[in-house]
């Protein structure tokens, strides 16, 4: 190799670039490679010793990287990399936090904007202390701006509902006028808004847990999480014997900065799946699912609870249901859920992505929310015990959390746990019984008010049919309740017998 280098060094008296170009052309090398060689030549022109070390470096490099090193380098295009492999049908695992994972993008975007606020403010030629939506849209499309700033601007403007939320977020300052000014809904975001939004996000993350970005562990669209480290850890440049799989640049967690959100929430919860890290659903999420179902089936009741029918729900509707003595326990449970979990109500009201976070949920929101939760499969654990009764009905979200609490209770024996779970199921049955009876009473009242017109007759026929269905359901529930009591009684006596046997065995031993 030194011989080669000597010759090269002698040659360097002439125009090195042209020689290398000539060599590149002669070899059919692309310009990028020729340029790399020029760099080598440039080093050599300066110093013969340096040139020698360069040649030795190449030799060392070659010995460091032996030929045919086994590497698994997946394609950069995730969809192509996954081609020919099965897709997981299960939803991506995400943390127990009910918050929307997109909030992570917003947090990054807000931090970027906060750090570069003065610069962004000056981009339109004047410094007015605020950024309009148009400014941000311009930044998002400006190729002269750094990619991170572009991404940040794009994230903020892509979700108009959340932008509205951020722009009205009061900032933390001692000046009350500044706070009031920062809360104006003028499509402009100030530094105070940004700081306030970041503080709000931090508070939400602290309260509900930090959501995990599903894409962060998903190279395979639409839902295939990859094991971290296999494709993400770069093989060592030293090239020791046997690196694992090669890295895929950018294959880890592409920021979904450009994606538009389906709606923001003041609690920042829309779009979250509610699935916990271990794949089990968050008990609150199941409660949310059940509450939505109840809401869907009794929309008019909730809607008119405050005395008027406006096809909108606010917290006042839920409070009215809770205060209504005539409301069924199911309705009350549903109302109580939303009162207790305001984050889920925020999620509901922004489910359709229409309007801002004004504390009002419409029927469209409900439909969108139902579709959203339908995408998450229902857990089976809480239904196993109730299926023993033969009805196949599942325990409600509240009861599922109770069941989990019972199962996780270290102070209870297995017998106590079984009995407690059966009790929970019985309570649910009781609630369901009351709900059915309530529905029957409503149907009977409505039937009584009907006249003799054609429409009334048709309605009466429908009511009769639904009444029969309700009676049948009532009967089944009664049977279920009876079966449950029998089971509890039998189990109790069995446990008693077992205990007696154990004691007598101990005595005789």
């Amino acid at each position, binding site marked *: 190799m030194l011989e080669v280098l000597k*010759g090269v060094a002698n040659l360097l008296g002439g125009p090195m670039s042209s020689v290398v170009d000539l060599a590149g052309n002669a070899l059919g090398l692309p310009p990028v490679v020729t340029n790399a060689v020029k760099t080598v030549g440039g080093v050599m022109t300066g110093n013969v010793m340096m040139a020698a070390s360069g040649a030795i470096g190449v030799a060392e490099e070659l010995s460091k990287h032996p030929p045919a090193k086994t590497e*698994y380098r997946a394609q950069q295009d995730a969809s192509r990399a996954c081609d020919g492999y099965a897709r997981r049908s299960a939803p991506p695992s995400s943390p127990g936090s009910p918050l929307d994972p997109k909030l992570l993008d917003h947090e990054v975007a807000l931090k970027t904007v906060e750090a570069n606020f003065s610069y962004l403010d000056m981009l339109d030629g004047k410094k007015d202390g605020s950024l309009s939506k148009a400014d941000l849209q311009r930044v998002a499309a400006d190729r002269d701006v750094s990619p991170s700033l572009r991404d940040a601007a794009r994230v903020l403007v892509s979700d108009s509902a959340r932008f509205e939320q951020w722009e009205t977020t009061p900032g933390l300052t001692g000046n009350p006028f500044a706070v009031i000014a920062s809360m104006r809904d003028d499509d402009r975001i100030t530094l105070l808004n940004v700081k306030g939004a970041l503080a709000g996000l931090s508070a939400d993350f602290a309260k509900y847990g930090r959501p995990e970005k599903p894409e962060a562990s998903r190279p*395979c669209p639409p839902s295939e999480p990859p094991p971290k480290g*296999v494709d993400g850890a770069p093989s060592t440049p030293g090239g020791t014997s046997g690196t694992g799989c090669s890295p895929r640049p950018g294959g880890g967690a592409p920021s979904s900065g450009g994606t538009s959100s389906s709606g923001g929430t003041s609690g920042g919860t829309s779009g979250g799946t509610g699935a916990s890290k271990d794949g089990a659903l968050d008990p609150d999420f199941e409660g949310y699912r059940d509450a939505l179902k109840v809401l869907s089936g009794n929309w008019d009741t909730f809607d008119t609870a405050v005395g008027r029918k406006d096809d909108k729900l606010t917290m006042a509707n839920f409070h009215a249901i809770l205060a209504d003595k005539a409301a069924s326990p199911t309705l009350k449970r549903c109302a109580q859920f939303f009162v207790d979990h305001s984050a889920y109500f925020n999620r509901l009201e922004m489910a359709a992505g229409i309007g801002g976070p004004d504390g009002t949920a419409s029927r469209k929101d409900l439909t969108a929310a139902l579709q959203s939760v339908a995408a998450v499969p229902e857990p089976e654990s809480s239904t196993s015990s109730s299926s023993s009764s033969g009805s196949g009905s599942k325990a409600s979200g509240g009861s599922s959390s109770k069941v989990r609490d019972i199962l996780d209770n270290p102070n209870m024996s297995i017998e106590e746990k079984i009995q407690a779970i059966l009790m929970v199921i019985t309570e649910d049955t009781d609630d369901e019984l009351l709900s059915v009876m309530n529905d029957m009473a409503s149907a009977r009242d409505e039937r009584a008010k009907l006249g003799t017109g054609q429409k009334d007759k048709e309605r009466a026929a429908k009511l009769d049919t639904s009444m029969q269905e309700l009676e049948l359901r009532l009967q089944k529930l009664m049977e279920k309740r009876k079966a449950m009591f029998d089971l509890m009684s039998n189990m109790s006596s069995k446990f008693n017998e077992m205990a007696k046997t154990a004691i007598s065995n101990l005595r005789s031993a």
Partner: protein
Amino acid sequence: MNRIIKHAEGMEPRMDVGTARKLKAFARGESTWAEVEGMTFEEAKAIAQVGCELAAAGRLDEARILFEGLVEGNPRDSAARAALGTVYQKLGRLDEAVAEYSAALARDSANPVALANRGELYLRKGERQGFTDLANAVEVDPHGETAAGRRARALVKAIALVAVEQLRGDATPSSA
């Protein structure tokens, strides 16, 4: 006619609709065996990781079995094909190695492992295509993220030095 394989009473052989559909798709060549088996990309990567480690430890036959299995399961996996090529290359099965690299490049023309190693094999055979492969390997892996990419870069440097020397040798007699 009696069945050759008899099933216990009440245990009729049953295949769910999804499996039947997958098998039909496999028979038609529309899906891979990995899809029929339900093997995900993650699982394949985990297996490939083991294969890489086996190859690095010199247990080439075991690595070959793993990568052959991966390629059999999903012939569309260019990364697995390239990895299998490296194992073949180390085992001295050079023609098979080139075939695997070429198959990998047919699906992913930017696979640096296949490009670098095929380029080197071509160069050993004295084929000019090797330069192009190596240069392409440097282009697709400019930062040397793969060992193959780094080797390709070093090879290109060395080749360029040799070429410069060759040119100098050619230039000296003519000037003299």
